[in-house]
């Protein structure tokens, strides 16, 4: 039994280590200060970097989180605390289907909702696409985490005359907070690497852009374009971009974990 478990662990670890190792091996050579601070050079010139794509990804993920996290947690609360009837079942089913929808389809949805309406590509459209993707992941996990909180804690709060909404926020959600944060981080990491939903929403950009309403570079897009190109220098930069994407995800996850362990999300009381 122990052998089997250890074997399974090994089988999970091997591809993980292999992927990360290969990324470091291929990418570390092109990773330098210029890569982090400069925008792409025109074709033919070597050097340049992905600074604009790093910032662009940050903007898109910020919008996505602003949409996905409150909606996802809100939906999860509804499902766990109130949605025991038919409507809840319907939402649960919808969320599960949405989870399985190919990300490019979500991209098309965001395109028709935002890009067609605005008549231009934008970081906002990409953020909407990724935000939509975050909702089902966060809501279903939040629901699971809340359902794991023993009913006796809710009863304890109700018994003190604490209203239902307050009980949900300050007792149930707070007790489940570490699980909910994990769910948020998982969904964040999942959408941070998405390329397809950004293809026709943010489009990409060779230059700096800090405007939410303009087409924007993003790391996965840049990697996608560079990897397909015929230039060796761009291939090397694509590897470096993939490495930096993973590193940034790890850093942001660690920051959130640290903040959580210091009680930043537990509220002022």
């Amino acid at each position: 039994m122990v052998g089997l478990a250890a074997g399974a662990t090994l089988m999970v670890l091997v591809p993980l280590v292999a992927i990360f190792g290969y990324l470091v091996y291929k990418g570390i050579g092109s990773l330098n200060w210029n890569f982090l601070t400069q925008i792409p050079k025109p074709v033919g010139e070597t050097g340049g970097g992905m600074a604009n794509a790093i910032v662009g990804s940050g903007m898109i993920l910020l919008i996505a989180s602003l949409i996905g996290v409150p909606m996802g947690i809100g939906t999860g609360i509804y499902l766990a605390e109130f949605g025991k009837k038919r409507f809840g079942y319907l939402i649960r089913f919808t969320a599960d289907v949405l989870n399985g929808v190919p990300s490019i389809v979500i991209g098309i949805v965001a395109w028709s909702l935002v890009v067609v309406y605005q008549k231009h590509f934008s970081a906002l459209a990409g953020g909407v696409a990724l935000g939509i993707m975050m909702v089902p992941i966060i809501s279903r996990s939040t629901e699971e985490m809340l359902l794991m909180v023993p009913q006796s804690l809710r009863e304890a709060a109700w018994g003190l005359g604490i209203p239902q909404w307050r009980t949900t926020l300050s007792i149930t959600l707070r007790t489940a907070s570490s699980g909910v944060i994990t769910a948020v981080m998982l969904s964040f990491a999942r959408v941070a690497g998405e390329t397809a939903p950004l293809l026709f929403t943010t489009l990409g950009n060779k230059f700096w852009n800090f405007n939410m309403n303009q087409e924007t570079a993003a790391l996965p897009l840049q990697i996608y374009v560079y990897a397909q190109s015929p230039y060796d220098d761009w291939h090397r930069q694509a590897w470096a971009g993939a490495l930096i994407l993973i590193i940034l995800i790890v850093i942001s996850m660690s920051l959130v974990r640290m903040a959580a362990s210091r009680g930043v999300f537990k509220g002022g009381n």
Partner: protein
Amino acid sequence: MGVGIQVNQLNAWFGATHAVHDIQIDITANHATAIIGPSGCGKSTFVRCLNRMHETIPNARVEGTVKIGDTHVYGNGTSAVEIRRRVGMVFQKPNPFPTMSVYDNVAAGLKLNGYRSHRDLDEIVERSLRQAALWDEVKDLLKKKSGASLSGGQQQRLCIARALAVEPEVMLMDEPASALDPISTSKIEDLIFELKQNYTIVIVTHNMQQAARVAEFTAFFLSGKLVEFDKTEKIFTNPGDKRTEDYITGRFG
């Protein structure tokens, strides 16, 4: 000070199951009343009807009237939240809030109801913990120790302190000592003895010696019906009903 409870024609259901039948009982203010009876006789359900906890269970239903002092618990203008502030409850299994310190557990009922004055809070927390005979054991680690890290008996006294902090008039205790060791049990019983000077106490118990020790009045429930309600002494020495006698002499249940 405590207030009396008048219950009239109380019926309760879980879906189609009729759990409590036509209960009529007058519970005296500032005394302890014990509810005894075999498992599944509806005594917990009955007590949970007194602070509108019963209705939190899906498909549960209540009919009849309950009056706490002058307030109709199931009246049109009465909110469940308001009733639960006046009628505190202690549960069978200690259930402190695991993410909160001892201090925050006791203050939770006030803080989460929007009570903000910190100096008052400190006083109320200390007074409640003293009333629950827990102060000396936790006073040095009030804000450092988590409520969940206390022992079972301490946790239950913490839950009592938490309920006392919102200054209820009635205290419902649903087998408060059944999950505890004998020493903790006797501490809880001493506590009930103290508390009943200022609160009306209704205690559900499996343990007949416990009922005899702490309560002036005892009600015997069987199959969802109130069989007999009288002074504890009378119930245990000279019961009026054959079924009560069978139960307390251990012939069934």
